[in-house]
């Protein structure tokens, strides 16, 4: 992976957008156990688009509150700190998936569904195994295939060749990327995560989500996301661009200390929770152009 190709890609990554400041602040809040609802309200109030989204969401028929909710703090009281925190991070990251390229729009949407599915799955696996920070796992799941977005947005010609090869050989995108780019989406996503200073364990989990045993101190988190990825492929939640299910990295199972008997309940929970969260996220990300310009 540490070859000239990757270095050339780093060059292009220099042109990538920086992570919105709001997202950085939300990740800080997530990582700080002392942060409060008031801190969160502060971040939201500073950002008009987020404020508009949140108020639209709580006033939508999805919640059906009888009276109109006019303030962010009241919304947080009603929906709860965790729900809002998660929602904001999710929707802010959603923006990154919303490029102008029409041709890739469908693919980007499928990748988004896959990413959201992995976020939910990683969180469910983490909860099942009593991980300390499950919210962190949600973020890792959401961003694990970040490198693919970079490919779509900044390397469209290379990405077209990768797609063509995946289609012709019906192989994993990871293999096609390595053949054509000399590196894969995990390497590329990792570069960007480092550049954005995303908090640990996100960059390491991105880099090792296909080979969790190499993730050092974050092996468990990487293994959870690795399994989450396989779960979402199995349940056909979105698509990461190929039609194969990679073999489970054998040590992942041992790292997680799961039992074969656990699989059934985990998959059923994923199916339910993913479909519960979906309209919620949709409602919060939909925003009219005028609000965006505001």
């Amino acid at each position, binding site marked *: 992976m540490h070859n000239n190709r990757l270095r050339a890609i780093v060059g292009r990554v220099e042109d990538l957008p920086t992570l919105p400041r709001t997202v950085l602040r939300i990740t800080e809040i997530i990582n700080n156990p002392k942060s409060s609802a008031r801190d969160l309200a502060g971040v939201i109030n500073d950002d008009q688009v987020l404020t508009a989204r949140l108020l639209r969401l709580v006033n939508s028929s999805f919640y059906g509150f009888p009276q109109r909710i006019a303030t962010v703090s009241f919304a947080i009281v009603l929906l709860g700190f965790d729900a809002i925190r998660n929602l904001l991070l999710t929707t802010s990251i959603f923006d990154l998936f919303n490029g102008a390229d029409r041709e890739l729009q469908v693919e980007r949407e499928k990748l988004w569904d896959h990413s959201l599915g992995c976020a939910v799955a990683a969180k469910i696996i983490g909860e099942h195994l009593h991980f300390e920070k499950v919210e962190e796992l949600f973020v890792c799941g959401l961003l694990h295939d970040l490198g693919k977005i970079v490919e779509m947005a900044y390397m469209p010609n290379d990405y077209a060749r990768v797609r063509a090869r995946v289609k012709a050989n019906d192989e994993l995108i990871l293999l096609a990327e390595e053949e054509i780019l000399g590196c894969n989406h995990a390497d590329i996503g990792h570069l960007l995560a480092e550049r954005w200073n995303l908090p640990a364990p996100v960059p390491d989990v991105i880099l090792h989500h296909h080979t969790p045993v190499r993730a050092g101190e974050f092996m468990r988190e990487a293994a959870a996301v690795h399994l989450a990825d396989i*779960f979402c492929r199995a349940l056909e939640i979105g698509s990461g661009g190929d039609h*194969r*299910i990679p073999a489970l990295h054998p040590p992942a199972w041992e790292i997680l200390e799961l039992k*074969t008997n656990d699989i059934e309940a985990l*998959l*059923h929970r994923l199916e339910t929770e993913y479909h519960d969260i979906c*309209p919620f996220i949709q*409602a919060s990300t*939909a*925003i009219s152009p005028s609000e965006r310009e505001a």
Partner: protein
Amino acid sequence: MREITLVDARSDMILASDVLHDHQKLLLRKGVALNDKNIKILKSWGITRITVNSDPHPEDGATPADPVALIEAIEDRLNHKFGETDGNEIHKEIQRVATQIIIARYHAQEAIDAQ
């Protein structure tokens, strides 16, 4: 007529009822065929669910009318995706449960369509 989430909306589906924003502003009229552009516009207005006409000729094969054929198609697809499981117990279990869940998902959709 069936209610679907906007995520599942596809070009050429026909709206079975008007799409309103906030229960008042008309966005799209009943009978209009969906396309990429108007789906995107509905999204931008925060619409999450719409009703569309049910497939007028389901026997034409979009979804196999025969439940056995449907289950077989799902099983084949997952078999292909998983490839050789080499007797790996974990893969086998994931595939078994996933197949069940996806079949149940289709049945649930059918029940909604039948309403």
